[in-house]
């Protein structure tokens, strides 16, 4: 049995999904778009009782078939009937839930809405679980009314009932259920109350194929119009497997994709338009407003009879009070920056670095013992180097990112689940609108200053695909913390008295280039209207530990998968290029003869216009692709120096103007392999490669101009 879980944003859908499935979930994408598709198997004890009902019904049918076939001596058919019965038992014993994106309507505008519609219409789930926030019931029921039109067995899970009741509100569940024509189960996803009852109700409804008992929520002109159109398009709708009623309502709303799907004749289109025009004239309003109004009027009436609302809920009062400070005219931005600084400090300074150090100590210990074991075994030195310098060093260095990612996502999920992230978007929106984004993109970009990898992963919270793509492309311009050692080394060598100034210029320069790119993207590739920024500010809530934990687990798993696939291969390739020369001989220490160095030499003329022709500089940039920290260590290895003596050696390679150009290039060129892998995960390989190439080209151009300008001053 497959259930679709549908509901608004911020109504506790993820919490319910986690309660239903536990850690038994699989995260992927809906085909063609990067809208997250989570699927899980219900593991709760309560599930046992459910399918029995349906199962027994079906089993009787199968047994009858078996006996009939056996009586007719048709052994093969009897066997088939038996096998099918077993199949059924297995399939029914398992309840799968697909978590659909949080949406407010089934209109054809955002990817999330389209994905939900297509899934419900094309994948034929056995039932819909519609989660409704009892504390915000009017707006939530708006989606419910549209889901009912899909004519799929459905159950309403009335969430946050604990909060609603605690505030003195009551809901006549029976009345609500009767009026809507679908079962209604009060639950509290956070407190894990009512979940078993919900599973039972859902399974029983689906097993009995109990369709919503009521389709008409309209009256007067809208009613007449929908009925006329439904009658007209019935055959078309049934042919393509869309409920006629749903098709009719969408046509009346002026839904272009549905019009196309139904393939109406010109004559039929005219008749639909005629009915709609008649309705519009009668009501004195247009089609879209008429239907929205019709639904909300029904809901208003229903709420008036079935719901006794509490005056002002405690949670709402608390939220308003918190917002008085957190979105205050003068305090909002300083508080936000302070929170982000604290998170950065804790992540990169305290917890993250402690855990990272701990992990790398562990990895070093394992590496050392493996290394000595392999040495004692007398393994071929090249294979030994592959295992130790390639695999262990490469994957080890990437693994040391893991604690930082987990800690950062812990804080991020707290911000997101508590409702604060929506406030950040509200406060910062005006700033980002200029480059065609919304306030929601601010946090991922800010994380980019720490590390591009979690920043790119964090764009998942953006609700618009256009914004998400654009944010991913712009995030690498926020100079990540791994580039800091490069800046530190170069400023020490060339600008010892203006270190801070140079660093500030670099960071500001990265942001400036990012803003320019944003403006260019906005007017070219991302032309067209962004998704409207009409966003709910939910009440502040305590994040559910289970949801936070599951998110961390998911992110860690995601990152580890990449560490052991894309990044693993990339590190081996880099090791190979560093270890062998072009005739596949192992190179001596220092690696001057390696393929990578040859490649560096080959590339160095490209950097001549930027002022640095030394092959060691271009080789360092190449290794910087594996991790930005590697730029400094490569320069140290190739010049035969250490951290203390490197600044002096750098002065022999770069002129001050060339150093500025080198820093500019490092600031802007392709992000490291881990970040590119993250982009690949979100946007696909083609986009990731294009991004890496475009950024390197852009870095070259900017560095060129910076070099020319610097020559005038130095």
């Amino acid at each position, binding site marked *: 049995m497959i259930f679709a879980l549908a509901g608004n944003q911020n109504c506790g859908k993820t919490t319910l999904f986690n309660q239903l499935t536990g850690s038994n979930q699989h995260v992927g994408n809906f085909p063609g778009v990067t809208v997250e598709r989570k699927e899980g198997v219900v593991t709760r004890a309560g599930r046992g009782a459910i399918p029995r009902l349906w199962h027994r019904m079906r089993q009787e049918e199968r047994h009858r078939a078996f006996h009939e076939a056996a009586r007719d001596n048709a052994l093969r058919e009897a066997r088939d009937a038996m096998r099918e019965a077993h199949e059924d038992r297995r399939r029914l014993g398992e309840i799968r839930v697909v978590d659909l994106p949080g949406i407010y309507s089934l209109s054809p*505008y955002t990817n999330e809405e389209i994905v939900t519609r297509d899934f419900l219409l094309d994948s034929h789930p056995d039932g819909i679980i519609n989660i409704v926030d009892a504390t915000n019931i009017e707006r939530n029921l*708006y989606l419910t009314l549209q889901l009912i039109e899909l004519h799929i067995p459905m159950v309403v899970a009335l969430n946050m009932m604990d909060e609603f009741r605690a505030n003195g509100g009551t809901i006549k569940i029976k009345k609500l259920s009767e009026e809507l024509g679908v079962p209604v189960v009060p639950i509290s996803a956070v407190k894990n109350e009512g979940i078993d009852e919900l599973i039972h109700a859902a399974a029983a409804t689906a097993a009995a194929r109990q369709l919503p008992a009521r389709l008409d929520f309209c009256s007067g002109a809208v009613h007449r119009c929908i009925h006329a159109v439904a009658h007209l398009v019935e055959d078309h709708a049934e042919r393509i497997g869309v409920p006629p009623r749903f098709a009719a309502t969408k046509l009346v709303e002026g839904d272009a994709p549905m019009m196309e799907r139904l393939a109406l004749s010109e004559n039929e289109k005219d008749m639909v338009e005629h009915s709609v025009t008649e309705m519009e004239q009668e009501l004195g309003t247009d089609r879209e407003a008429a239907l*929205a*109004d019709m639904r909300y009027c029904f809901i208003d009436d229903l709420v008036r009879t079935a719901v006794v609302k509490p005056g002002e809920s405690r949670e709402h009062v608390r939220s308003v009070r918190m917002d008085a400070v957190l*979105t205050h005219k*003068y305090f909002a931005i300083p508080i936000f920056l302070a929170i982000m600084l604290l998170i950065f400090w804790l992540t990169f300074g305290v917890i993250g670095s402690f855990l990272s150090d701990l992990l790398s100590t562990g990895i070093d210990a394992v590496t050392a013992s493996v290394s000595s074991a392999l040495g004692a075994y007398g393994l071929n030195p090249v294979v030994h180097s592959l295992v130790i310098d390639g695999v262990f060093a490469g994957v080890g260095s990437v693994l040391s990112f893991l604690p930082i990612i987990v800690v950062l996502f812990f804080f991020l999920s707290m911000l997101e689940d508590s409702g604060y992230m929506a406030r950040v978007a*509200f406060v910062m*929106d005006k700033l980002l609108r200029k480059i065609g984004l919304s306030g929601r993109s601010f946090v991922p970009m800010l994380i980019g200053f720490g590390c591009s990898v979690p920043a790119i992963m964090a764009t998942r919270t953006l609700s618009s695909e256009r914004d998400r793509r654009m944010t991913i492309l712009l995030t690498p311009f926020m100079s990540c913390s791994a580039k800091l050692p490069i800046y530190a080394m170069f400023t020490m060598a060339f600008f010892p008295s203006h270190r801070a100034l140079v660093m500030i210029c670099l960071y500001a320069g990265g942001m400036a280039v990012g803003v320019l790119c944003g403006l260019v993207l906005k007017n070219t590739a991302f032309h067209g209207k962004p998704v*409207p920024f009409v966003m709910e500010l939910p009440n502040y809530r305590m994040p559910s530990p289970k949801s936070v934990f599951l998110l961390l687990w998911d992110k860690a798993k995601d990152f580890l998968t990449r560490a052991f696939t894309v990044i693993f291969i990339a590190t081996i390739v880099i090791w190979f290029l560093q270890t062998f020369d072009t005739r596949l001989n192992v190179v001596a220490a220092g690696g001057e003869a390696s393929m990578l160095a040859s490649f560096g030499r080959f590339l160095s003329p490209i950097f001549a216009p930027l002022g640095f022709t030394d092959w060691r500089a271009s080789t360092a940039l190449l290794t910087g692709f594996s991790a930005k920290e590697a730029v400094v260590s490569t320069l140290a290895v190739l010049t035969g120096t250490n951290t203390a003596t490197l600044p002096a050696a750098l002065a022999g390679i770069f002129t001050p103007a060339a150093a500025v150009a080198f820093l500019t290039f490092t600031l802007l060129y392709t992000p490291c392999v881990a970040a590119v892998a993250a982009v690949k995960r979100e946007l696909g390989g083609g986009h990731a490669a294009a991004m890496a190439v475009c950024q390197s080209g852009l870095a070259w151009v900017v560095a060129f101009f910076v070099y020319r300008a610097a020559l005038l001053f130095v």
Partner: protein
Amino acid sequence: MTLDQLGVGNSGIILKVGGAGALRRRLLDMGLTPKTRVMVRKVAPMGDPIELHLRGYELTLRLEDAREIELEAEEDAQ
């Protein structure tokens, strides 16, 4: 008057929702339908967007989008 002109703490009854396409549909879907009462709760620190209170919940809207909503101000300013 239009919604963007309504001062903080004031409320009004929606008369008409303008605009087109995704924006308009979104406004209607979120419950900004004619005859609905809305209150302007707050203006963001940089002067835009605004925070509204309607149908028992909080909604943010950019001023340019709020301009599409016509309403009649209520006298009783809070």
